[in-house]
């Protein structure tokens, strides 16, 4: 019964973008690539230090003019061992699981950096555990936040 047949249209939508990191983002990504250093910036009014560094402190509406080098280490604030399947919108393919998605509070910083932790054993992961950045080796860093390969738990 063709009247009852329901048609679906399948499309592999593929939209290329070339997003600019901007002034502060470029500053951070250059430092990461060239010097293995994580940069933040400090609001002159509330003294909060932000990562990634940005053009404005939202609550104060002021440029956080002072650029600061952050420690590559900090504490795990929250995490999730991702076990469910989903499409990675960057590739159109399933993102490999499991992996650990984490919010990390770098020493000297007031907000969190979203990144990965190379640990999926829940017994070794808990809020407050110390972690540190593992950088890609010299020559492999290209100016992306993924130049930090992941964070690792420091025993």
């Amino acid at each position, binding site marked *: 019964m063709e009247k009852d047949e329901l048609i679906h249209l399948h499309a592999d939508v593929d*939209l290329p*973008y070339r997003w*600019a990191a901007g002034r502060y*983002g470029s500053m951070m990504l250059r430092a990461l690539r060239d010097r293995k250093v994580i940069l933040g910036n400090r609001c002159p009014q509330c003294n909060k230090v932000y990562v990634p560094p940005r053009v404005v402190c939202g609550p104060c509406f002021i440029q956080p003019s002072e650029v600061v080098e952050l420690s590559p280490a900090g504490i795990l604030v929250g995490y999730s061992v991702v076990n469910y399947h989903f499409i990675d919108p960057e590739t159109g393919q399933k993102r490999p699981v499991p992996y650990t998605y984490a919010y990390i509070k770098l020493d000297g910083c007031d907000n969190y950096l979203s990144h990965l932790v190379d640990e999926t054993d829940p017994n070794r992961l808990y809020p407050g555990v110390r972690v540190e950045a593992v950088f890609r080796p010299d020559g492999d860093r290209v100016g992306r936040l993924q130049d930090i390969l992941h964070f690792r738990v420091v025993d």
Partner: protein
Amino acid sequence: MTDVAIVGMAQTPYRRRRDDANFAELIYEVSCGALQDAGLEVGDIDNFITVSNDFWDGRTISSMAVQDACGSSFDGGRNVSTVEGDGTFGLLYGMMRILSGAYRTTLVVVHCKGSEGNMRLITNGMFDYIYTRPLGIEATGAAALQARRYMDKYKLTEEDFAHVSIKNRGNALRNPNAQLAASLSLDEVMASTPIASPLKLHDISPISDGAAAVVLAHRNVANKLGRKPVWVKGIAHCSEAHFLGDRDLAEAPALRDAAFRAYQMAGIEDPFAEIDLVELYDAYSYMEPLWFEEMGFCSKGEGAELTRLGATAFDGPLPVNPSGGVLSAHAVMVAGLARVIEAALQIRGEAGERQVEGPVELALAHGINGPCGQSHCVVILGE
């Protein structure tokens, strides 16, 4: 006549690529600029409207990138909303929120970086996915169908449209914010690369990066500020059918309707006689006469003739796009708010080198959404 005025404004220069700035940086620049222009602090603003598009930005909830930068996170946060569409629609919604009595001041911001996405794929995405998208049609192909229909119905020529490009790119020579400015000859336009017949390279607006911001205030606030307010005297919007084949593309009944209602609100009876200046959305050269006619400035099919005779020239009786228009800079969505800002600058007498001669007491600004100007917003500004 409404109780809302534009009391501050700012725009970035429009350029092909702004690799030095991300969305937040563009918005912070124009937010600070508009506040400064208004003589206000961010704390004086109780309502924010951001305008952006998730396809152009490559980001669902594209407004997230600019919440901090527009000031809506200030001091524990303020009321805010987001319009996805042309900047004129953002202005309209910002106004509504003042007229409703809920807020006194509104900062409207809009950004777009055409350099970051693929215009053809992004505009293909606005067509229906069953019957039209599989054909690969996008904004310019659709516009070409409209241009051809308009030419055939009203016996117009490609030369008629070329004169619009010559005028607007020429006007852009006086506008430091414009991206494309040139003294073009008729031959140059006619000989430019064919893109989608009858449209050639010089008939088509560029792809631009940029941002703009406007501060709106209720009468009670506006009258207390040092700046001369530019009043929103009338405003209206309207959409017509989606499928290109449902429309007579040589007509724009939605624009006719919006213009009529905006004139009614502003108390305008004879637009050609009463309005001193027009900034309209000329994404393609043919759009200027088509929109101009539907705005009631002349009869159908006469718009191109008026341009050729110089009636819409910089020094003509009714200058149209003295800024150079969208043909000279086209940051999508920003472009409509840029029309508003350009018209408001002319009313203030602060348009610099591009200030037209004679007083500008009443001006029309215009924005569009969707393929071939499916949806329109008409804004009447005045002293």
